[in-house]
């Protein structure tokens, strides 16, 4: 134990790894929210068009 080398200093790689994980999941969730928002806008527009024709 006395002569055992310390673990390699790989903290930066760990941070990069978690940045990729959290960033990618975050981006995907944002993408889904944006698509929902766009659909709501389209739906509102369709409601208006249908109300005009009614």
């Amino acid at each position, binding site marked *: 134990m006395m002569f*055992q080398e310390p*673990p*390699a*200093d*790989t*903290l930066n*790689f*760990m941070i*990069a*790894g*978690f940045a*990729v*994980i959290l960033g*990618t*999941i975050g981006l*995907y*969730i944002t993408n*889904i929210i944006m*698509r*929902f928002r766009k*659909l*709501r806008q*389209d*739906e509102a527009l*369709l409601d208006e*068009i*249908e109300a005009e*024709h009614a």
Partner: protein
Amino acid sequence: MERRPKTLTVLSWLTSVVFIVALYLVLFWAPQEAIMGDVQRVFYFHVSAGWVGALAFLITAIVGGIYLARGEQRWDRAAMASVEIGVVFTFINIVTGSIWARPIWNTWWTWDPRLVTATIMELIYIAYIMLRQGIEDPDRRARFGAVYGIVGFISVPLTFLSIRIFRTIHPVVVGSTDPTAQGAFDMTANMRTAFFFSLFTFTLIYITLLWHRLRLQHKMEMIEERKLRALSA
């Protein structure tokens, strides 16, 4: 627009809490690996992301088979939603693997069977999404998606078994016996807890995302139908 089901809202919050707990276990609960240091912590989510990718593509193949048997569009919707999530998580799996490999193998990329099969699998499912968009007729698109999803699934067991069949430097952490593997390690009790909790967390994330994505797909189709009706009126 339909209101979000209460169960989905609860599931989303629960998933967020479970994910925070998983982060705590991985970053603080599990001990630092004796040789690799902190980068080994990426392993917990790296494997979990790979698991979600495989699970998502398995679900795609299963719902593809159901679509071919029943011809109901909702199964095609599930296949598309599942593939999209699978592609996102396989991407995470490949990139985090590369980040781990840099200090451990001294390279970002090597033509190892696992890395190659995983990348081919990812490309197969990216092609699935791209090719679907080129088919206008919904029935043809769904049939194509179902057959492609079933045939494409061959890449999943091939990727999983690649480190067990071929000579590779990629570690088999669970049940490893290969002395040529570089970066293998034995898990302590706390590491195992963090590992299995991560697998559970990512499975929960998959279920939650799939539900949201299914609702999105359903809405997209409804709006598309309304647009066509408005244009033809």
